[in-house]
């Protein structure tokens, strides 16, 4: 029955998944069976598995023959669900399934090699494109299933024989990479759905191969696997195999710079390779990586400047910075690593200097804007990656005073353009974020105060303009306000600035920052504030810090402002039941606790503030709360 259902699986993706799950459960429970009784599974499972594999292959072929130029498979998420259930089936009676898979793989590869030796196979180069597409579609499916099977290595008992079979199957996949490299688009924009699918399948395979053979628990000395791989494709150890994978990934970032899904998945793989302990150590040794640390930027990696990839720039630089800092001494001098950013920032500086003298042309503005938003996203990625004190200090020294003051000039020019201010404010929010206690300067260094001053200047410059000129919409105003709240909360709670010095030396940086952010947040009606989760999650921690660490400032505020803050706390206290975010009521309660404690303690040094607080309280006795039980 199962066999017949799989033969018609083209039509019903969902039921295939449940059918596979059933069989997969049967197989995984075999281990718990007792007794000598022979199980019929031994003969049925390979039959079911093979039918499934074959029917998917035939579906791909039939689809492509009927509609050439279409993607023959369902979306990857559904496919991955199926594969996860199918892979334990394949490893049951693995010899049979592996032979079966090789029997399908080899003809497909041979056909492609024949096309290759016949001449032009590159995309857009003419030739038998329709026939190629069919074989490519089949190959994509085979790469997926091999990835799943190899990745499921942990689900069955591993033996040298099984590892050899893994090696045989992986060999075919690595051979497929050669084909893909011949096919890669020679001009940007040229593409074929089947080739893109094959690329996605390869990334899937890399991920599963990584988990099975490179991951933390994996046995590094998988000699049987590498023996097979080195015989056929010259991959003799985990360093070589990582080199192949990373090279392919980097190549994707160049060739497929316009394909968002491929860029995204390549970066995920890159990030995961850099996160694993042993794989990251290997990564450092690769030439392609040392090269990338020295030469990075839109010229080498065109995906950086593609408009669809702004998020990816940050991800990429976070990963690259992590790799740089893997070694205690740094794989490369930090200045050298940052060198590619310098010309961009200098160019921007020149632009701002000229803009002061005469209004820049529209073209010059657009160019500067694109450069600025790009480099800010990159630098935020670098800053996210600087996870320890030494790295952060190196980054800060590089940035200040040479480049950081430029942010304020950018805001003066583009304050009402959220495509600039969002990445800019987000960069500042990362820079002032003292995670892992990374912001720790020498006791004689003024850097903490200097950093806060820059943040304050930026908040004031942006905030006053927004207060006076931005329409009250999320895109134009609230989003920026929410990031401002995050910046100030992080700076105030970072512990790297002694805020007492500002009033002591008559420096207005602190009060200016508090004033403007308070005005910004109170300019949003509370209902609106609660309607946008990001704004809400920015506001309440800020109100808590205000009540805790800047109580004097709070008490000395104008009564109207003071009551608005209290009324917001009261509003927040009602946020007690899910689906409301209950952290709001916790933060409000904590804010109130600190204010009440301040009043209870009645320290002599706070006399002035306490007096102001009492006068606020006296002004507001009119409306008595009526207690009504529910």
């Amino acid at each position, binding site marked *: 029955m199962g066999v017949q259902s799989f033969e018609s699986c083209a039509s019903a993706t969902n039921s295939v998944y449940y059918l596979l799950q059933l069989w997969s459960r049967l197989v995984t429970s075999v281990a718990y069976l007792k007794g000598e009784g022979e199980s019929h599974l031994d003969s049925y499972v390979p039959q079911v598995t093979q039918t499934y594999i074959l029917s998917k292959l035939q579906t791909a072929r039939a689809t492509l023959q009927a509609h050439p130029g279409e993607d023959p498979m369902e979306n990857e998420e559904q496919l991955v669900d199926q594969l996860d259930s199918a892979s334990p089936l394949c490893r049951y009676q693995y010899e049979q399934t592996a032979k079966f898979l090789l029997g399908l793989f080899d003809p497909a590869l041979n056909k492609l090699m024949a096309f290759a030796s016949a001449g032009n196979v590159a995309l857009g180069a003419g030739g038998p494109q329709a026939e190629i597409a069919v074989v490519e579609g089949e190959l994509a499916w085979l790469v997926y299933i091999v990835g799943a099977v190899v990745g499921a290595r942990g689900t069955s008992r591993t033996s040298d024989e099984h590892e050899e079979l893994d090696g045989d199957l992986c060999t075919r996949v690595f051979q497929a990479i050669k084909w893909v490299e011949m096919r890669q688009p020679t001009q940007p924009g040229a593409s074929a759905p089947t080739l893109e699918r094959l690329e996605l399948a390869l990334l899937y395979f890399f991920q599963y191969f990584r988990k099975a053979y490179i991951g933390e628990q994996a046995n590094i000395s998988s000699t049987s696997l590498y023996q097979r791989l080195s015989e056929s494709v010259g991959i003799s150890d985990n360093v070589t195999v990582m080199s192949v994978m990373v090279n392919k990934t980097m190549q994707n970032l160049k060739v497929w710079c316009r394909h968002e899904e491929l860029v995204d998945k390549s970066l995920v793989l890159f990030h995961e390779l850099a996160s694993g302990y042993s794989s990251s150590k290997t990564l450092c040794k690769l030439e392609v990586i040392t090269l990338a640390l020295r030469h990075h930027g839109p010229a080498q990696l065109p995906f950086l400047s593609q408009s669809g990839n702004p998020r990816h720039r940050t991800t990429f630089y976070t990963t690259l910075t992590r790799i740089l800092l893997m070694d205690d001494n740094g794989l490369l001098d930090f200045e050298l690593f940052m060198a590619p950013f310098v010309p961009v920032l200098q160019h921007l500086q020149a632009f701002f200097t000229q803009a002061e003298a005469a209004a820049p042309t529209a073209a010059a503005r657009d160019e500067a804007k694109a450069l600025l938003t790009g480099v800010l996203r990159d630098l935020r990625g670098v800053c996210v990656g600087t996870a320890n004190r030494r790295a952060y200090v190196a980054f800060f020294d590089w940035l200040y005073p040479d480049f950081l003051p430029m942010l304020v000039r950018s805001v003066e020019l583009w304050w009402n353009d959220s495509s600039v201010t969002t990445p800019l404010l987000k960069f500042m929010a990362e820079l002032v974020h003292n995670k892992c206690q990374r912001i720790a300067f020498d006791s004689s260094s003024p850097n903490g105060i200097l950093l806060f001053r820059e943040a304050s200047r930026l908040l004031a410059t942006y905030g006053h303009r927004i207060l006076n000129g931005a329409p009250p919409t999320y895109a134009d105003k609230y989003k920026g306000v929410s990031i401002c709240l995050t910046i100030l909360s992080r700076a105030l709670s970072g512990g790297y600035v002694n805020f007492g010095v500002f009033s002591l030396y008559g420096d207005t940086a602190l009060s200016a920052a508090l004033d403007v952010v308070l005005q910004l947040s109170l300019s949003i009606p509370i209902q609106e504030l609660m309607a946008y989760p990001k704004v809400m999650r920015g506001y309440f921690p800020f109100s808590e810090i205000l009540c805790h660490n800047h109580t004097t400032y709070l008490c000395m505020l104008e009564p109207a402002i003071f009551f608005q803050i209290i009324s917001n706390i009261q509003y927040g206290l009602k946020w007690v039941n899910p689906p409301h975010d209950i952290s709001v*009521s916790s933060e409000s309660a904590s804010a109130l606790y600190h204010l009440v404690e301040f009043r209870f303690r009645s320290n002599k040094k706070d006399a002035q503030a306490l007096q102001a607080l009492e006068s606020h309280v006296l002004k507001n006795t009119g409306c008595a709360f009526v*207690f009504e039980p529910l």
Partner: protein
Amino acid sequence: MFGNLLALLLESVVYDDCPNQWALSRPMLGLILTNTEAYEQIKQQMIEALPPDRQAQMAAALEKLMTGVMRNLESRNRDKFTQNLTAFRQEVKSFMNP
């Protein structure tokens, strides 16, 4: 102003099943200690809002809320108050929904 907030907190802690009860109870002791008049009023309102046959029970429960609690915000005293509050909450629940 502070009286309102105290009443609001008492109401949520007693009558709402909120998961962050502990966090909400934190400012209450300070509020009670710094707003004794308002607290007396609130107590009166809480009692009077109930049907006559429950009023005595509520008054007794409220009395116990501050038993053994000093006039300070040291952590031991705060813990004592939190314990009392939990007991209070359970007691009120038991006679409100027998």
